[in-house]
């Protein structure tokens, strides 16, 4: 086969096709940004005619490298243009098109395309829709920069890029105090994570003298990487909202729904996990870091799943489910299965984006009502949207042969067959069953039962810009898992044989979850106790009291440091007192003494003068 010259030439030129088409993707995406800099006002349909089209085009272009990769396994690294460099430390623009970036880029573009189309309907009344689309596009570009980065600096560029664009997008309705707070929260929590990334970068620069990924991987073979890896884990904790730095993610629901969809599916929050996937060659030999990931992920997935159980805001539930899935991805990283984590990122992107679009459509239909207690019966009113909502929830819970199944089931199997922490395993399984509970809760409250909203709601889903994106994502949620798994060569040998109970563990806990939830739902109609015991409910509903404590205490302490200690005590009191004021107070007694003598008392002066003179003369004469 190799003797075939045509085949040979394809293999030789395919890296070229790959790099050029990936660069074309960048061009296609940035073209609307640059043309929008022209002082002429943009046309009203610029968002659709330029931005959406650019993303769509970029998606189709990015299929070429994907197919090249699937067919030939082409992976390539493109390095050009030395950006900056000192004598020994160079930084080049370098792009990496490997398994992860070639698969992720088309998915991100596909999902964003759908979200943009949906946004053109959702935001149609917004006077700044063009700007909104531009922000979304820059957000996407930053994410693709992050994914294709081949050195730490470029990665950091994309990393901060998504961070700051999320600030703008979450704070889109800037007249609202809540939106501004949420935007600030997102940036600050991410900054805490950034400290970890900066730490890792400083460590790499100091010890390996390079930020280039290959060089980092090669040069660090025999080194103890625990500290930089912990730095990277902190970075991922911030960006992917792991336990401790998670509260910004549900708060980010203050942004418009398309933003939430994009933020949660294919950009921003998966960046942290993606960072660890990228760095997995460093992670795989470090048990400390792996265990940290495992336990952190398990804690996150259970905690946020618990929080999701009692939320009433439809977007908050979906947001917490993202957080929980991110915890699951973190667990997978901890299992040393980066590829599975990546697979879950990919499948999750489809159904999570779809869930958000469905909830956006429903929220819009119900006059911006987000409380699931005030919904119900949507199954009859918006049949398409609510069936897709159900489909997404099913995919999320890992129903066999939907997208989520292929990644989630594989993860749980890998978890079951590994020699790792039983505590983490139990937590993860519990979280998996909780997934079923809150998913059922959404479906139960939104699409089942009778309508509980005001009768005059502008319910209409018959708009191609609503139906089509959701439909596309629905297809993705159905087949994406199968497509990716069947085209992916596992890097680690999966354990194929195991006892049935382990094999079916994921399904069993999910089913148990569903059964419990249905039992609970039926119990709501029968009040057994006069006063229900609400502690557990409060814990879940108040998000574990985490924001109530951390969001008050930490800023308060900081602001007290700023005001009382730094400004008042040090600057305005002690530094003044020991500096400028001290000079005054030291010199004042001297000045006063000299001053006091000279008060125009001529008699005293003359008599003093006379006596001194007389005394001096007397002494001289004698």
């Amino acid at each position: 086969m190799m003797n075939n010259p045509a085949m040979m030439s394809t293999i030789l030129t395919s890296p070229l096709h790959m790099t050029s088409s990936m660069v074309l993707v960048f061009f296609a995406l940035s073209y609307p940004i640059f043309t929008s800099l022209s002082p002429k006002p943009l046309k009203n349909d610029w968002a659709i005619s330029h931005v959406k089209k650019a993303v769509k085009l970029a998606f189709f272009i990015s299929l070429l490298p994907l197919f090249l990769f699937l067919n030939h396994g082409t992976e390539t690294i493109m390095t050009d243009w030395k950006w900056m460099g000192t004598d020994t430390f160079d930084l080049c623009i370098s792009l990496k098109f490997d398994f992860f970036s070639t698969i992720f880029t088309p998915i991100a573009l596909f999902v964003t395309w759908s979200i943009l189309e949906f946004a053109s309907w959702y935001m149609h009344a917004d006077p700044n829709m063009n700007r909104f689309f531009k922000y979304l596009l820059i957000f996407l570009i930053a994410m693709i920069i992050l994914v294709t980065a081949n050195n730490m600096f470029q990665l950091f560029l994309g990393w901060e890029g998504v961070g700051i664009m999320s600030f703008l997008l979450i704070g889109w309705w800037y007249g609202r105090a809540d939106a501004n707070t949420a935007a600030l929260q997102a940036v600050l929590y991410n900054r805490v994570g950034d400290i970890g990334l900066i730490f890792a970068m400083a460590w790499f620069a100091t010890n390996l003298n390079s930020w280039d990924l290959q060089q980092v991987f090669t040069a660090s073979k025999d080194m103890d990487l625990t500290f930089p890896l912990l730095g990277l884990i902190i970075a991922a904790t911030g960006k992917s909202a792991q336990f401790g730095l998670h509260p910004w993610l549900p708060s980010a629901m203050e942004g418009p729904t398309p933003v939430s969809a994009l933020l949660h599916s294919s950009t921003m929050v998966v960046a942290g996990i993606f960072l660890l996937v990228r760095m997995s060659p460093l992670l795989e030999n470090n048990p400390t870091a792996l265990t940290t990931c495992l336990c952190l992920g398990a804690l996150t997935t259970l905690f946020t799943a618990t929080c999701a159980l009692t939320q009433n805001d439809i977007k908050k539930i979906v947001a917490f489910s993202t957080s929980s899935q991110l915890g699951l991805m973190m667990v997978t990283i901890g299992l040393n299965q980066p590829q599975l984590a990546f697979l879950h990122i990919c499948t999750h992107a489809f159904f999570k984006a779809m869930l958000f679009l469905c909830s956006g459509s429903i929220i819009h239909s119900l006059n911006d009502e987000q409380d699931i207690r005030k919904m119900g019966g949507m199954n009859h009113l918006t049949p398409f949207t609510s069936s897709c909502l159900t489909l997404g929830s099913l995919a999320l819970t890992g129903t066999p042969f939907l997208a989520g199944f292929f990644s989630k089931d594989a993860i749980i199997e890998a978890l079951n067959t590994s020699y790792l922490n039983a505590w983490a395993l139990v937590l993860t399984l519990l979280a998996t069953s909780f997934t079923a509970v809150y998913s059922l809760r959404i479906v139960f409250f939104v699409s089942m039962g009778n309508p509980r909203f005001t009768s005059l709601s502008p319910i209409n889903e018959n708009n191609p810009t609503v139906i089509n994106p959701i439909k596309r994502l629905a297809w993705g949620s159905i087949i994406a898992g199968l497509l990716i798994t069947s085209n992916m060569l596992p890097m680690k040998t999966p354990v194929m044989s195991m006892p049935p109970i382990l094999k079916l563990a994921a399904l069993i806990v999910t089913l148990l979850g569903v059964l419990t939830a249905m039992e609970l739902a039926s119990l709501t109609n029968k009040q057994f106790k006069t006063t229900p015991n609400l502690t557990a409910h409060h814990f879940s509903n108040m998000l574990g009291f985490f924001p109530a404590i951390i969001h008050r205490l930490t800023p308060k302490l900081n602001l007290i440091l700023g005001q009382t200690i730094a400004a008042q005590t040090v600057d305005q009191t002690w530094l003044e007192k020991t500096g400028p004021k001290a000079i005054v107070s030291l010199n004042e007694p001297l000045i006063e003494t000299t001053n006091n003598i000279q008060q125009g008392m001529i008699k005293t002066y003359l008599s003093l003068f006379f006596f001194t003179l007389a005394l001096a003369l007397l002494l001289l004469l004698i």
Partner: protein
Amino acid sequence: MLKILLPTIMLIPMTWLSPAKRLWTTTLAYSLIIALASLAWFNTPTETGWSCMNTYMATDPLSTPLLALTCWLLPLMILASQNHTSSEPVGRQRMYITLLTSLQIFLILAFSATEVIMFYIMFEATLIPTLIIITRWGNQTERLNAGTYFLFYTLAGSLPLLVALLLLQNNTGTLSLLTLQYAPAMELSSYADKFWWAGCLLAFLVKMPLYGAHLWLPKAHVEAPIAGSMILAAVLLKLGGYGMMRMMIVLEPLTKELSYPFIIFALWGVIMTGSICLRQTDLKSLIAYSSVSHMGLVAAGILIQTPWGFTGALILMIAHGLTSSALFCLANTNYERTHSRTMMLARGLQMVLPLMTTWWFIASLANLALPPLPNLMGELMIITSLFNWSWWTLALTGAGTLITAGYSLYMFLMTQRGPLPAHIMAIHPTHSREHLLIILHLLPLILLILKPELVWGWSA
């Protein structure tokens, strides 16, 4: 050198002779031409490092960026001052421009001096026009106090430097920057030598300013008119950093241990002044304190004395110069409209001045060091070189970046976002002059992304 210096000097007669109607346009155009011409300094690849030499002046990779920044800032100051001096008689306007020009002359001489003593004299000479700008053109009575603080802090710091320099001259026989690094290392062992070491650096640390000696800075910044704040933040503080980098060569053996307390102090200052920023209600004071915080990082980067530290410090000096000057200009656009520096009184300005919000946003991002702006490159290099010295510094620098992000965005949210207060009615729309002013600040910053080596100093 004279190609820039003489035109700058000739700017003064031109200010007085040009007709009143064209005063601002001609001086602006002229100073812009000087600024553009000064960019030619970047294009001098020489092996020795020194170029454009004459008997007393020369440029090298360390001074070139600062010189170009100095020249770049004069047209911007002229642009910024046009509105608030418009109510003054034309003679005073001419006087004002003359002061600004004289400041540029002194600064060019200071940055390009090849003799340390000449640098010292010019360093001191910049005090005079700055003092006049603050105390004569400031807006409130506190300006007199601010002027006193400014003058006495700087003088008290820099007089020991004179003595120290004379001692150095006595020992080595030369004060030429060209040869100083080849002079034999001095025997420095006694306590007196340590005082000498402190004397050499104190002036610059006060000028930077180091945390603890920074009280003059917020006062001076707040009370100065816009041009004064701009030049203070953008260039005058950098005299300190520049002087320190020059003196470090001579101080070599002693610095290694003596600098530790200063590094810690500088980094501690980053946190403390950052926390103060979080509580500021006064916009200009916030920007001033943020300058102290950033310059603390610069001071630490210089004191650590590694190539990365120096490079990072120089990048951050240039980047911070442009950023903080831009922020002061933005604060001034608010001030000229609302006549108040209090942030609470001018909120939600995105509604009324939408394009200004863009500038605010970019400037805030530059202030919090967003990649790939040069601010980040500088901070990252300083953080890395400090990290190389001690891991614990990351606790301080890391917290510093977090707090910086906090107050930069607080400033942005406070001024631009939120609902528009009811009392903000009938304010001027933005002028093209103001947009141009900010663009001329931010454009160099953005262009530096593409070729950061220009401001990398010796290690480029």
